[in-house]
């Protein structure tokens, strides 16, 4: 990561620990939340996580890719939750709290992307077909950092 990239990735909330992406270069928080994918310059296929080496379309031999900010909203394809603590490398809260997962379809990119559900929404708040919006939230904290990740948030009203 470039020096500038690192600076923009580690931001400090007032009074809180510095924030750090739990995975580098998969998403951006500012100026607005976006997943960072890539697009093959030759055949225009989108990739997330980003492809940077060789196009996965068997009819294409593309090796050039553009970084793309993916659409921020999509349609809920399906959802579930985790009622038991997953094994490491998942970092669980203590006591463990169930988490919700969503698979969201982006219309422009024609891709379904998984993410946790934001804001403590549970499966009872969700329905296949509803609109979901991308946000950046804390995944887990350690002594040094708030580690952040992308999540899907139901759009209500």
């Amino acid at each position, binding site marked *: 990561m470039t020096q500038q990239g690192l600076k923009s990735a580690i931001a400090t909330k007032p009074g809180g620990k510095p924030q750090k992406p739990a995975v580098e270069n998969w998403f951006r928080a500012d100026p607005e939340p976006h997943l960072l994918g890539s697009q093959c310059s030759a*055949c225009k296929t989108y990739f997330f*996580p980003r492809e940077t080496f060789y196009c996965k*379309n068997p009819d294409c031999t593309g090796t050039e890719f553009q970084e793309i900010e993916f659409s921020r909203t999509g349609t809920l394809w*399906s959802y579930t939750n985790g009622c*038991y603590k*997953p094994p490491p490398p*998942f970092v669980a809260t203590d006591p463990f709290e169930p988490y919700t997962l969503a698979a969201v379809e982006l219309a422009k990119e*024609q891709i379904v992307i998984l993410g946790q559900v934001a804001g403590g929404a549970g499966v009872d708040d969700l329905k296949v077909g509803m609109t979901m919006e991308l946000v950046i939230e804390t995944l887990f904290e350690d002594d040094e950092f708030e580690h952040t990740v992308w999540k899907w948030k139901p759009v209500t009203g």
Partner: protein
Amino acid sequence: MAREIAILGAGMHPWGKWGRNFVEYGVKAAQDALKEAGVEWKDIQFVSGGDTVRNGYPGYVAGATFAQALGWTGARVASSYGACASGAQAIDNACAQIQAGFCDVALVVGADSTPKGFLAPQGGDRPTDPDWLRFRLLGATNPTYFALCARRRMDLYGATDRDFAKVKVKNARHGLNNPYARYKKEVTEDEVLASPMVSDPLRLLEICATSDGGAALVLSSMEFARKRTTNPVTITAVSTTTPRFPNTIIEMPNFSTDSAAAVAPPKLTFKDSIAARAYEEAGVDPSDINLAEVYDLSSALELDWYEHIGLCKPGEAERMLNDGDTTIGGRVPVNPSGGLACFGEAVPAQAIAQVCELTWQLRGQADGRQVEGARLGVTVNQGLFGHGSSVIVKH
């Protein structure tokens, strides 16, 4: 190319949590299969092993491990890995050797010894491995992927949690008299629905456990078989197909589907293509099928398979189940062995065990769970990272 490979013998070590070395399960299964076949170990020319990745180096070279355990004879070996489809890869490799004329008779073996709990990724810090990252960033355990499919059935087709529970009840009943099953106990719908939620809408009794177990087959050319038996059960197709781009259904352990923005999706989804390619190879139609062994990693996934293997149209699986079509005695019984619901998964043995069950069923030797008059069966299974697996067995 059409195949005709004879199944001379099938053997299994009972599934369970025995805590012994996986090699012992494989050796026991192999000995049973050889005995059934009436073939001496020393006559086996090719040993095809299904690998286990949880038992150290011997598991990675399963073909050699079983050959050494049975006593080195100079037989050639192969070791195959395709996650849950490893057994089908091992069967496919043995069939190919026989069809190519490199050998007349082969032994296929898969066995596993598994730890307790969720299947976890391998240890260490591996931030470029999607199988590591899905646990780290999402907590996307295997059951969460099964549950995404289950929930979609509910929201799209109106499936209910009671439908899913009925699959478990059916399979538990099927497996009651199977000597190789780990769980031999009837359950009621209410008991299933009272078990703890794991990944909504799937409950503990609806999600497949991990087991120890072993399965083996003795396969041969038809010419070799005719010297020993007049009418052997045969394998007429093995599909080990992989997805076609773009794969538009989310698959474990991925974060996303392929994008279909630039290239239109294939006519058949990956799961639809697995058995379809076996039917095509065997020259049969799904309506010819008399029974099926499908990979019920969850109760709801069994319903998906009814549709993916062409037993009914999308959205009709619940009706098939509720009409009793897939129960022993029904139109096309599914998982007469009891399925993963009664076995739990012993990864490299499971696809081989599916073929063992069809072999016994088609010979009329499935005591206490016999599907009457069955002539044609299909197995289907899918392994992580794009491994399809489907075998057509005929008598």
